[in-house]
């Protein structure tokens, strides 16, 4: 069982690594601090966030996506062809993202995230995974004024994200994760999502994952397993039907079990988590099981986010002890 996070981590922490990022960004927007000065603050927070995960005992850490305003803006800004537009609701949350508008054929002139990845990997003592938006979700969250074809847009994004993923692998990422919250959220063209993931993930010389959250994979899990990725991330908190699908569908992939509610502060009990682990453990061998919150932790205040990370690690350790004990006494 590998403990990990989905991606984002609180950017500010009143009781820990400070709220200085807010002021730094405000000053940067007013051009009172330079790009380098802002980058220095981002690096400081990133280092603190990685250290927290490592001290909590997370096996596979993330950089916390401290520089990310949302899942799409960093990529849209790093590519040619997009203009960042007004606020739109982030799925069914009281959180907003800026909707990119595609107004000409998108192009990628240089790596976008590789330097940031290298920094995080150097700051960490444990493996750091790389995270990208999935091509289907990226296209779904933009306004397309160029292709006027969702399919062509999604497949073009898949190509560009594949190139970006290759550079992340070159930078040392042992696992590249594609976030696809739009898959299973409302009506989904699963065939296209799988096809686009095929373009984005195929041939990468690292492990690959697709993470879904907020929606339901009831009815979508079997189809999504056709995507050429190693790991499928399931949010079993937002819709209980996804857990039912996990119990029912024949599994061919490794599973990442999104088992803590990263959208509510209520702390799960170890018992509750063990019950979910047990369901997954019946379906996949433990060495093919990742466990993580159901989505990025940035919806939570820092104190509760950290408490959940610690609880996750605690629950995994006691679960493994329980299994070792059972096998020792022959149950």
């Amino acid at each position, binding site marked *: 069982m590998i403990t990990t996070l989905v991606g984002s981590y*609180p950017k500010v922490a009143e009781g820990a690594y400070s709220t200085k990022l807010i002021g730094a960004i*405000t000053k940067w*927007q007013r051009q009172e601090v330079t790009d380098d000065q802002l980058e220095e603050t981002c690096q400081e927070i990133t280092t603190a966030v990685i250290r927290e995960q490592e001290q909590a005992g997370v096996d596979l850490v993330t950089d916390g996506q401290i520089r990310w305003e949302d899942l799409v803006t960093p990529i849209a800004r790093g590519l040619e062809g997009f203009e960042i537009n007004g606020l739109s609701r982030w799925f*069914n949350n009281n959180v907003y993202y800026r909707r990119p508008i595609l107004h000409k054929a998108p192009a990628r002139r240089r790596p976008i995230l590789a330097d940031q990845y290298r920094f995080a990997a150097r700051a960490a003592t444990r493996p750091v995974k790389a995270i990208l938006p999935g091509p289907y979700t990226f296209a779904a969250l933009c306004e397309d004024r160029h292709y006027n074809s969702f399919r062509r847009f999604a497949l073009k994004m898949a190509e560009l994200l594949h190139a970006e993923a290759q550079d992340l692998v070159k930078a040392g990422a042992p696992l590249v994760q594609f976030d696809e919250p739009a898959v299973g959220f409302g009506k989904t063209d699963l065939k296209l999502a799988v096809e686009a993931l095929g373009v984005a993930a195929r041939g990468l010389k690292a492990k690959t994952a697709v993470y879904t959250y907020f929606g339901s994979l009831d009815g979508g899990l079997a189809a999504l397993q056709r995507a050429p990725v190693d790991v499928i991330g399931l949010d079993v908190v937002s819709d209980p039907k996804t857990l039912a699908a996990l119990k029912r569908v024949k599994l061919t992939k490794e599973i990442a079990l999104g088992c803590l509610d990263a959208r509510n*502060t209520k702390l799960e009990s170890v018992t509750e988590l063990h019950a979910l682990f047990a369901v997954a453990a019946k379906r996949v061998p433990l060495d093919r099981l990742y466990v993580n919150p159901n989505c990025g932790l*940035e919806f939570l205040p820092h104190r509760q986010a950290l408490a959940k990370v610690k609880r996750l690690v605690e629950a995994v350790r006691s679960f493994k002890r329980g299994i070792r004990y059972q096998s020792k006494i022959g149950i």
Partner: protein
Amino acid sequence: MLLTTSVGSLPKPDYLTKARSQARKGEMDAKRLRALEEQATREWIAIQEGLGLDVLVDGEQYRGDMVAYFAEHLAGFAQSELVRSYGNRYYRKPIITSRIARPRPITVEWWRFAQALTTRPVKGMLTGPYTIMDWSFNEHYPSRRAATLAIAQVVREEARDLERAGAQYVQVDEPAISTRPEEMDLAIEALGIVTRGLRAKTITHICYGDFKTIGPKLHRLPVDQIDLEFANRNFELLDFFKGRRFPKEIGLGVVDVHSHRAESRDEVVEGLRKALTVFRPEQLMVDPDCGLKTRTPEEAIAKLRVVVEATREVREALGNGRGTGAKRAKR
């Protein structure tokens, strides 16, 4: 017919914004802050009267966030550390930590204060139970439904107290209602608890995300009037109502609250005339799209002025029997 009003919040004058920030830092006592809030309320009542609005609001000079304000005055809520809502914007999201109760009336004293300043009716302004639930963390109630229904009871008490104090209009805003279409029935049930048995005219303001999904249930909202944004999408929303006999009154948002520019009188007259091809004049109240608190006081006044002037022009045209293109109006 065609009474004019505003949706609820009005901008805070600079002196009040400064005072609130000083009060937060402990540099100003509550009494002094209160005096400035009263001063701002007095000014806004005088401005609304001067502009010629028919139904007034107190302008919510003493409120910050529309959910946090109620959470701060109810028992059962705690305040969280900062969470991000978008970009570089953070807020303190309320946490439901124990049974929700209303130790004493929350808005009634402010309503009385505002109503004593004018002979025109002042609306009682509340935030709806579904929105308070959706914009809070919940650690106490077993489900979103249980939390919503518990909040509905305290909002109901507040609505009754406003009515008892003499409010002729009680507005219960539910901007979150379009977030999760699958929970629309819950929102309707909870709002019904709040409005049941009230003799005051009841209004709800909702911001729509995906109107197609909530539109068909709109007529089931248990209020007399539904206030909607029409201007910011160029009155396209009228198409939804075309050809149906909508059984409720409509609050018609005719100016966009997100733009700095004040619409011209002709633009707003044009919008109103379009609306009168779909609605009966006696079915309509006219207002801005949403609360004006994000505009400057000058911008807000300019927008309210054009609402009043355009409505007056259309009203006069109707009164002179020249008609507006609305068949029923010619009767």
